């Protein structure tokens, strides 16, 4: 047995695979939160993106690459459409961001629109036609240890690395990024300096939704790959992504690390079972959720000590003319 078949390498490679949807969703949520809008509807947006992405691969015929790109576009647009509801309610109508986000999850989620959409188009009975395959871009897939983990992944994974870098540079180095951070920290100051708070918030909530949609499509086009009704397709990944943003102190780079950590926890049960470990699977399945709680507790106690908080205006509607 080569080192690349060892449990550790398999779990790490799977960690990257399972971590990728978390990474997309978390980066999206991070952008929205940096602009000051908390969107708890990630789970719902992911589920709907998964359904729409799958539907596109079923209804468009052609070579894998263009069809899959179209599917991602469809997933992104559907995620953004869901986010638009949240944006309208919370930014324009000043509704509670928490309740609106929960409503979005119920509306778009596994007992809502994505199930309705899937049932109407009978997605569950359609077999997979296109899916993301692993690409050995640099010819390094057979490298010991690093090969399977880093170089034998799908285009979705490689794209997520580029995206992480882009988001980090965008927030940290560009004028728009500076403006977003100002909008999230001190909307009144940003407004006084001529930055359109409403526009920035809308754009980032929509982009956040689009990335959540792509994150959902990772499940239906790459990880599973299939579509079935109910919540179990995404199974709480949207919520873990929200926790990841807190874990990462709202920094894109740390999101990547956290995503793979939680990806590994999600990958562990099946890998252990394949290696003949006989722990009741429910305990292993619970791991990512329990670890999310543990990580949040650690982070929230240390957040209090350091000056690494949430964007100061997170969750607060901005109202200019109110006295």
């Amino acid at each position: 047995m080569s080192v690349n078949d060892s449990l550790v390498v398999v779990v790490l490679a799977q960690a990257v695979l399972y971590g990728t949807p978390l990474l997309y969703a978390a980066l999206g949520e991070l952008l929205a939160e940096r602009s000051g809008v908390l969107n708890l509807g990630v789970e719902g947006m992911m589920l709907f993106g998964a359904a729409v992405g799958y539907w596109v691969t079923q209804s468009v015929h052609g070579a894998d690459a263009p069809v899959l790109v179209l599917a991602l576009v469809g997933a992104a647009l559907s995620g953004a459409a869901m986010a638009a509801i949240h944006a309208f309610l919370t930014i324009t109508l000043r509704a509670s961001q928490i309740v609106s986000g929960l409503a979005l999850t119920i509306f778009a989620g596994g007992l809502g629109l994505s199930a309705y959409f899937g049932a109407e188009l009978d997605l569950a009975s359609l077999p997979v036609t296109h899916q993301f395959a692993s690409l050995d871009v640099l010819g390094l897939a057979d490298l010991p240890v690093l090969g399977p983990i880093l170089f034998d992944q799908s285009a979705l994974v490689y794209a997520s690395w580029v995206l992480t870098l882009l988001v980090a540079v965008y927030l940290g180095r560009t004028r728009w990024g500076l403006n977003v951070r100002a909008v999230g920290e001190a909307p009144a100051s940003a407004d006084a300096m001529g930055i359109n708070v409403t526009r920035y918030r809308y754009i980032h909530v929509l982009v956040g939704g689009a990335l959540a949609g792509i994150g959902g499509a990772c499940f239906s086009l790459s990880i599973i790959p299939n579509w079935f009704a109910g919540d179990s397709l995404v199974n709480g990944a949207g919520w873990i992504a929200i926790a990841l943003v807190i874990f990462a102190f709202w920094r894109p780079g740390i999101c990547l690390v956290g995503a793979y950590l939680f990806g590994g926890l999600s990958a562990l049960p099946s890998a252990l079972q394949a290696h003949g470990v006989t722990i009741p699977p429910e305990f292993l399945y619970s791991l990512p959720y329990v670890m999310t709680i543990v990580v949040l507790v650690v982070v929230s106690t240390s957040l209090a000590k350091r000056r690494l908080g949430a964007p100061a205006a997170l969750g607060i509607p901005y109202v200019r003319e109110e006295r």
Partner: protein
Amino acid sequence: MGESTPVRGANGRGAGSSGASPIPAVRMVEVTKRFPGVLANDAVSFEAAPGEVHALLGENGAGKTTLSNILTGLYRPDEGQIELFGEAVHFHSPRDALDAGICMVHQHFRLVEPFTVAENVVLGDHRSEGKSFFVHSPAIERRVAELGEQYGLGVHPRSRIWQLSVGEQQRVEILKALYREARILIMDEPTAVLTPQEAEALFVTLRAMAEEGKTVIFISHKLHEVTAVADRVTVLRGGRTVETVMASDATQRSLAALMVGREVDLGRSPERKQKPSGDVVLELDGVRVPGDRGGEALKGVALVLRSGEIVAVAGVAGNGQRELAETISGMRASSAGTIRVGARELHPGDPRDAIKAGVAHIPEDRLGTGLAPSLSISRNAAFKTYRTAPISWGPFLAVKRMAELARSLIKRYDVKAPGPETPARNLSGGNLQKLMLGREFHGDPKVLIAAQPTRGLDVGAIETVHGFLRDAASNGVAVLLISEDLDEILALADRVVVMYEGAIVGELDAASATVEELGYLMAGGEAR
């Protein structure tokens, strides 16, 4: 730069005073702005010339800030017209106003705390360095440093805002305007956060800017500042323009009459009681409190208050006054030292213990700390008494008695409100303060801590609050007055202590203290 040192006085007055410039830099005509239930500006008109320092004088609530928010595009006027250099303008957003060369330094700074000075300066700029897609910090930092040197506004471009003192933060605000090459600079109550000496330095900077042909609109309710710095003064009252006068022709007395609408007595209240010598009611010894941002907010404060005296705490904002008030009232836990009320030592960080011991507290944040905004007056009135009969019986609330208590407070303290079920947020600042004072006196306190009790109130309400505080002292309550208004302190207090960087750096007898002396101590000078 630096060859001409601007001086205050007749020869320093710019073009505005001669009225020579035919085209005003700013002209506002019949501007009206309404808010729900309030007519903030009622057909206000004024004009300011290039090279002029033009003061907008008026008491709180006269409509000065609303007017400037209209001029900066933050609010849109319901009626009226704005002209800049002779051309009518319609601002749809603050950006339009910024592009037209108008910058404003708000009373509450519009800075992003986690950002650096340079980032704040370039924020929202889309003309010079801000135009590029990537933010080139070094170029911006260099420019900020240059400007700081040129105008005597030294502040390190890479410091983060939250690390700066309030005075330094104000410099960043002015640097923002200079960086954008603003033609019109609006300063809203800029001296409220400064020592008298810092204020003098600010006036020099403002005059220098006027010398260069910029227009400075200086908003204030302080007469001596207006006469010291302005060329012309437009007086606002109740949302209307009263008159525009030349500063050189005006006296403080004449301006005060215009501002309030009647003759007022500006002198210090003469009837000063003999030094009270009651028992010690409040005693702080070696009190240390950790700050919100690391470090210590209070560094071993010792203080004694006797029954019947008013002791004022003077200091520039952010030197530990807020923490002092919160520590005595138990909202903040001390890490060392003792606080005694009478013979009783308070548990640190236990507000209920402080309430029981007889500590009443008027917090500076009225709506949000002192009162819950969306709860009714009757619920707010019961904050300190709901635990005991007659407001509660066992675990239950006597809702009717709560309403009765509220009604009696409303009546006795002349709170203008539709009824006891009105939410607190619908009351004006003065009425909120009366409600809170009424509630706190209702509990027969031994100690009253009043933090910025008159901030933002109009003259009538200020007089009422001052009356309450004097009454409380004459009834034997020990009053700790925390204020940034030195005139208020000198008018009310028996003794003044000065706080600087979390410590008490001096104590003066109010009868003999002067503004200069206090300002010197507030800036960290050694006691003489």
